[in-house]
């Protein structure tokens, strides 16, 4: 190249064309190609009308084109625009990369999607080419915690865009803070992120830009659902990071280097693998725990380029627990949003969580967790008080862990060991005084060693059972039901006296709609003393009723009653729901008490949107007596107001209505049910029909009762068919809405007709379908 340039310029200096020609020929004696190139340059040099000789001017037209470019960049201009087969409806985000819109897709399916338009300045062709290269892998991903990327293309004005599943949520860190999640809650949420990332990695997709704003959390009923967005996008936008200018441009595009791994901060962008995502997960966990990132945001922002690389590559960040002490005034917020005190937070992080985070943040990726699921498993181990992998294993540490898990058991074991030793010594003494003191010591020592081995085996078993659970979960996520079932079964066999494996297996059966099997496992978990205030237990009451586990239902009900009557927790709707679902009165709580609780809670909620109920004594009022229309309310995924621990309002009204039904207040029950059922944002409003039928029947409206009962039955039929035909589609409503309808429908039919409803044949089909799934792979 250089010689081409030099030769060309030398030739130009020669004005005589003949001499010039000779010069070139001479210089390129044995390089024909070079000669041709230089000759072409010289020819181009003298060609007339070289566009480069007219520096571009901006006449009115070009100027206006620029003006209109400025205009079209304003978000309002986008609304109503059509891009491909998508119509832009509202802007929901703006970032370093560009703008995000809600768009309506018409073809081939009608649905709302998120459409992300990338800022000008990237090479559209290249972006799309890179996306196409990865599209196959991206399309293979199917995970409830991953927002799917459907499509990519180029707008008319040449900007690349991506079409993806619409996720309306808030970044995970924001969610955790605004919902005041404690450390445990944060860790649990984090394991969902790991599971999504693990799934993508298994499909060969690396995210490359994991950060809180790409990990959204939405509320589904009262469950927090994690959605990781932008899989496949960072790779498409990111250039091969070998050129500094492109590299800095990439920096400005992704917004922040805070979550970037050392190998990404190196300029050889080719060398990024799944462990880079593990690093980013580490930064995110760090932030979830401490409210700060390993390196200060301000510091990285103001660092120059080389300094930035040096920090990310070489500087060892503070351990999370140590980082807490540097937070200063921020500490108050951090502590408050985690519902703890400074000392308690530091203590809970110090040790295991420090190790877990720092292992993920290791500069040397071979020393990080080898996968997202390995990291998640360690977090789960921590949550279950088991020894974590990240920590260098020491016997003492393992024993401390074991002791914390099994305080009672260990105490007993030590007592037994002691008794045994004493007993042994005594009998030996009696048997023969000829045995020397030395021999006695040897035997005692052997016994002690055996006892210790037993304890170690026990610890090993727990670890293995947890591994099996994690593996079962990932099999289930990928639809390998048989393998999932085997893993869970082994975990259960290994730890039959620990409730967690049973509960995990119950979740698998729930996914497969195998109600009896799920109920069995839940019953055992309950008997083993599982705490029942976690979201997994929502709806289990209905399940136990449906499958005829009467005793287990009563056990659960008494726990629910205790939760409902507890005065310091504001809402326990799911517990109340589990109580009122059954017709019989409960020993520890009366129907009237349920009504009082429900009415009290409902009053604390805001008026449902657009439905003022001025004349109603139960019209929700704030404790201060206002109706709470002062500030702008926050809305959750369904457009319902966010209510902290509460459920969407129609669901609360529905539960309250059944409480009234059980207490014999039929007109109030009817009114509440009709109100709840008319809220069209509720995905499974058909739930109201069965209780409505019962209330009408009791209130003496036989025609209304019959009509409602029929509607309830039809709804069940249609949902069951849907489940059969599309077993893999994630339902809008939680699984227990369906089971609860089955229960209430049966009760209503017996009340009104005097016998159970005609059997739903679809249920048997559904069951066979799932059993086949479990058996098919056996062969």
């Amino acid at each position: 190249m250089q010689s081409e340039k030099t030769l060309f310029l030398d030739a130009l200096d020669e004005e005589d064309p003949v001499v010039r020609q000779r010069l070139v020929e001479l210089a390129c004696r044995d390089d024909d190609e070079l000669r041709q190139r230089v000759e072409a340059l010289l020819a181009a040099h003298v060609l007339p009308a070289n566009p480069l000789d007219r520096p571009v001017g901006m006449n009115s037209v070009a100027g206006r084109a620029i003006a209109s470019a400025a205009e079209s960049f304003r978000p309002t201009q986008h609304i109503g625009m059509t891009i491909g087969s998508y119509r832009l409806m509202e802007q929901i985000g703006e970032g370093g990369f560009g703008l995000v819109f809600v768009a309506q897709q018409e073809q081939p399916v009608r649905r709302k999607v998120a459409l992300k338009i990338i800022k000008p300045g990237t090479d559209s062709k290249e972006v799309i080419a890179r996306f196409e290269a990865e599209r196959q892998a991206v399309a293979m991903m199917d995970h409830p915690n991953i927002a799917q990327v459907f499509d990519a293309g180029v707008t008319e004005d040449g900007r690349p865009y991506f079409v993806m599943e619409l996720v309306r949520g808030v970044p995970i860190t924001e969610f955790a803070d605004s919902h005041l999640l404690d450390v445990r809650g944060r860790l649990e949420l984090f394991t969902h992120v790991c599971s999504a990332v693990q799934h993508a990695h298994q499909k060969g997709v690396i995210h490359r830009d994991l950060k809180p704003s790409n990990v959204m959390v939405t509320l589904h009923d009262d469950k927090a659902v994690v959605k990781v967005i932008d899989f496949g996008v960072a790779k498409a936008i990111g250039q091969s990071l070998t050129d500094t200018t492109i590299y800095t441009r990439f920096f400005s595009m992704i917004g922040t280097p805070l979550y970037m791994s050392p190998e990404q901060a190196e300029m050889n962008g080719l060398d990024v693998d799944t462990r880079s995502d593990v690093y980013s997960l580490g930064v995110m966990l760090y932030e979830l725990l401490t409210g700060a990132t390993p390196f200060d945001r301000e510091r990285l922002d103001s660092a120059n380029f080389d300094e930035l690389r040096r920090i990310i590559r070489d500087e060892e960040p503070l351990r999370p627990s140590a980082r807490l002490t540097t937070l200063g005034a921020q500490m108050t917020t951090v502590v408050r949003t985690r519902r703890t005190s400074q000392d308690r937070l530091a203590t809970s992080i110090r040790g295991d969580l420090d190790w877990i985070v720092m292992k993920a943040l290791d500069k040397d990726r071979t020393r990080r967790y080898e996968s997202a699921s390995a990291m998640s498993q360690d977090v789960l181990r921590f949550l279950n008080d088991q020894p974590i992998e990240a920590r260098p294993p020491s016997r003492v540490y393992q024993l401390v862990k074991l002791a914390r898990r099994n305080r009672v058991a260990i105490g007993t074991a030590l007592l037994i060991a002691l008794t045994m030793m004493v007993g042994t010594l005594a009998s030996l003494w009696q048997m023969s005084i000829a045995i020397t003191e030395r021999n006695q010591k040897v035997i005692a020592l052997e016994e002690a060693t055996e006892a210790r081995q037993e304890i170690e085996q026990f610890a090993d078993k727990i670890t293995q059972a947890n591994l099996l659970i994690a593996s079962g979960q990932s099999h289930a996520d990928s639809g390998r039901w048989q393998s999932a079932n085997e893993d869970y079964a082994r975990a259960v066999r290994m730890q039959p006296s620990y409730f967690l494996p049973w509960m995990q297996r119950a979740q698998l059966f729930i996914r497969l709609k195998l109600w009896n099997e799920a109920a069995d496992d839940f019953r055992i978990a309950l008997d083993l003393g599982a705490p029942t205030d976690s979201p997994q237990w929502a709806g289990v009451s209905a399940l136990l009723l449906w499958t005829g586990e009467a005793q287990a239902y009563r056990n659960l009900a008494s726990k629910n009653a205790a939760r409902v009557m507890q005065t310091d927790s504001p809402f326990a709707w799911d517990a109340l729901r589990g109580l009122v679902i059954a017709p019989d009165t409960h020993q520890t709580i009366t129907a009237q008490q349920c009504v009082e609780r429900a009415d009290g809670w409902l009053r604390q909620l805001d008026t449902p949107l657009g439905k003022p109920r001025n004349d109603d004594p139960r019209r929700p009022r704030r404790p201060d007596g206002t109706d709470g229309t002062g500030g702008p309310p926050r809305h959750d995924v369904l457009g319902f107001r966010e209510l902290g621990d509460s459920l969407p309002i129609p669901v609360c009204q529905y539960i309250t209505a059944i409480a009234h039904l059980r207490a014999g207040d039929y007109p109030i029950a009817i009114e509440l049910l009709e109100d709840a059922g008319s809220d069209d944002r509720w995905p499974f409003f058909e739930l109201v029909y069965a209780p409505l039928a019962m209330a009408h029947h009791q209130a003496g409206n036989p025609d209304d009762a019959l009509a409602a009962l029929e509607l309830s039955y039809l709804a069940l039929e249609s949902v069951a068919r849907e489940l059969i035909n599309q077993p893999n589609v994630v339902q809008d409503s939680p699984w227990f809405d369906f089971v609860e309808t089955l229960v209430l429908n049966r009760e209503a039919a017996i009340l009104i007709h005097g016998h159970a409803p005609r059997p739903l044949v679809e249920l048997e089909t559904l069951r066979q379908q799932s059993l086949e799934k479990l058996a098919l792979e056996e062969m």
Partner: protein
Amino acid sequence: MNGEVTRILSAIEDGNRQAASQLLPLVYDELRRLAASKMSQEKSDQTLQPTALVHEAFLRLVGGEDRKNWDGRGHFFAAAAEAMRRILIDAARRRSAEKRGGKLQRCELLEEDAVLNVDDTETMLSLDEALTKLAATDASLAKLVELRYFTGLTIEETAEVLGVSPRTTKRNWAYARAWLRREMDDSE
């Protein structure tokens, strides 16, 4: 705003490369805003000189008369040249798409299309492509062309911005000019 750009320019002076990437969007937006306001204020046959536009943007964003010989100027013009290139190329792409039966609502604009006609649009786009290729082999040559072509700087001004002698600039320009022409003719 003023201080922001000055701060970034100083940061670039201090060797902070990341700052360069912060400069571009600011200059880009300012140029677009400026062009838009010019178009709405003045007569429709007004011709905007890119050079004037860039100088005005510099005054607005950096200000200060005594900064004439300041080194930060070079960085600013380099960023401005890149911004102008993007603005014009984006505009050309949009026009090219409209010409091929794009959106109706902007047709009005096409009728006045006297100077920047479709040929020019196509030329600009193919020049842009060739320039991208040139940047891959010699980024400083591409920078030179951006300054000359998209902001209309003279050889002397360009030399000042790039910090090389006018003679070298002139020779480099001759080479880049022929190189691009060869490239554009080849790809036709």
